[in-house]
């Protein structure tokens, strides 16, 4: 899986690439508009992470260029601007997703995962891991060919974990993922614990192995080979 990170902030680009490395992800960088334009002209990527504020140009122009060349690369806009106008114009120009800084790397990884899934395995959107089978389109989960019923939040969590295989994810990160903007306004993050506990129980009861591990008391990790 080739990923192009178009980002002028080198520290950010380094962190992203470090987090994404392993799990088949190969990262390339472009820190300027011109650099990015050259790269997309000669190569194609599974996913492009695009910062729209670049020192020598606007990232939205890169999107236009991609569209003009009819490239099928998945694009996630990463922006510090939380402006609705930008979001709308970005998505209209063909971006697949929009993430506002600051974000968690696990959130980014989960979104990259689902975009690559969508782009590459068009109709067979099924993730398999031994006895576990997840159908992303139908939003169903089955274990040993037996369907189990998950709530929307539990399904969402499962995809998040699977998209962040072998990574430790903290409870506060999950709280942000689940409740969006107002996670920190709530006193405690017990609701995360409740959802994870239910998910674990449902998977285990249906005969699934313990892929979801608790780390350091409050962190979680989806282990798979």
């Amino acid at each position, binding site marked *: 899986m080739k990923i192009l990170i178009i980002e002028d902030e080198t520290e950010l680009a380094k962190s992203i690439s470090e*987090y994404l490395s392993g799990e088949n992800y190969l990262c390339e960088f472009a820190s300027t508009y011109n650099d990015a334009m050259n790269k997309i002209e000669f190569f194609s990527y599974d996913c492009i992470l695009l910062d729209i504020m670049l020192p020598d140009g606007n990232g939205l122009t890169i999107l236009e260029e991609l569209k003009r060349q009819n490239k099928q690369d998945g694009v996630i806009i990463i922006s510090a*601007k939380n402006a609705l106008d930008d979001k709308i114009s970005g998505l209209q120009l063909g971006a697949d997703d929009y993430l506002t*800084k*600051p*974000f968690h790397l696990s959130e980014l990884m989960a979104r990259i995962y689902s975009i690559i899934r969508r782009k590459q395995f068009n109709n067979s959107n099924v993730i398999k891991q031994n006895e576990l089978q997840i159908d992303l389109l139908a939003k169903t989960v089955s274990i040993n060919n037996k369907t189990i019923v998950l709530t929307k939040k539990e399904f969402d969590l499962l995809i998040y974990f699977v998209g962040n295989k072998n990574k430790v*994810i903290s409870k506060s990160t999950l709280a942000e993922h689940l409740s969006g903007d*107002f996670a*920190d306004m709530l006193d405690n993050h017990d609701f995360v614990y409740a959802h994870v506990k239910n998910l674990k129980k449902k998977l285990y009861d249906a005969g699934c192995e313990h892929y979801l591990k608790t780390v350091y008391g409050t962190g979680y990790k989806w282990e798979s080979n």
Partner: protein
Amino acid sequence: MKPLLSRTTKPFIIYVLIILVISIPVYYFVVDAIWKGELDEHNTTIARKTAYEFNNLKLSDAALEKSIALWNQIQPGTDIEKIPFNHVKKDMFFTVEKQKTFASKPEIERYRCLKKVIYIHHAPYLFTVETNIEESQETVAAIALITVFFFVLIVVGLLFLNKKLSTSIWKPFRHTLDQLKTFNLNNQTKIEFDNTDISEFEELNQSLSKLIEHNISVFKTQKEFTENASHELQTPLAILKNKLDILLQDEDLTEKQYQITEEMNKALTRSSRINKNLLLLAKIDNSQFDNTEIIYFDRLLHQSMEILQEHFELKNISVNENISSSVKVNGNSSLTEVLINNLILNAIRHTPPDGSISVTLTDSLFEIANSGTEKLNTDLLFKRFSKLSADHSGSGLGLAIISEICKFHQWKINYTFENNTHIFSVMI
């Protein structure tokens, strides 16, 4: 509300009415005085002419006496009377009113009289003559009638002219107004005013153009500033957050170190939230939100309640909903969503476990009440970064944002504490 022209018309008409009413007695006195003057002149002429004619007849004294007696009998309204020399007086002019003697109906007639001494055959005679003049009430009535007629003419003319003028003269003004109504600072579309040859309107258009240009440029700078500030602050926060995520993946991490990164994570989330909230406040202050959407208030409320349902359950809070259906208001829906979420979250945070929250929505009121123990400090309530409780997890901006959103929509927010219940009510 009345159009400007009708406002000026009314005082004009009242002014004309007053002037015309005053003019009625003035006209009467003037006409009466002219009339009397003319009649006095006429009476004097008759007296002189009579004396001249008698002298010209060259009658004997006896014949003269007879002629005068005859004159007095057949000449109505005049009387000649011999007077001694020592009774000679100055001419007297006066008006009398008396009953008409020969008419079938009794009618008051007005007469202008002259008593003048004339000399016939060098002897003094008192000549009295009365001439009928128009009765005063008839004159006044005629003048009043004519005045009313002219008044009606003026009013009809004025209204007609007003109607004509308001469509033509005010046309450039109306155009300017239409342009202003469609102007939206958010879209920053330039406004082109029509050329007009009326100096006031031209001046108005020029001032408006200047004002709008200035506003657009200020708006742009402010918008750029908030966006740049956002960029500058969000990027280092993003770097920190991402570094922590990477640190978390370190296999040699101890549980203590993990707890520290988790605390840092929470603090970072809070600071990025404060940053986002400050930007939101700046944006509301700069009116960067469109307020012309139709908001389906009840739908937004149901949506928020559903999302936050699990948090009610987690704290075992009983919820009492009283939400009217199809409550529609004008404003900005994303800001309204923020308002609703903030108010409900606020209530959840400050409700003790096993407490209760009640949510009420009617066509004009949105109210959230939650159980509590102590009244909040109303002076600090809606101030930015004011600490109302010992709990430090909030950004300190939630209520300030609520208040700004209410101001933006021109809604009124109110806080009361009754029967151990905090009540926040928004008049929408």
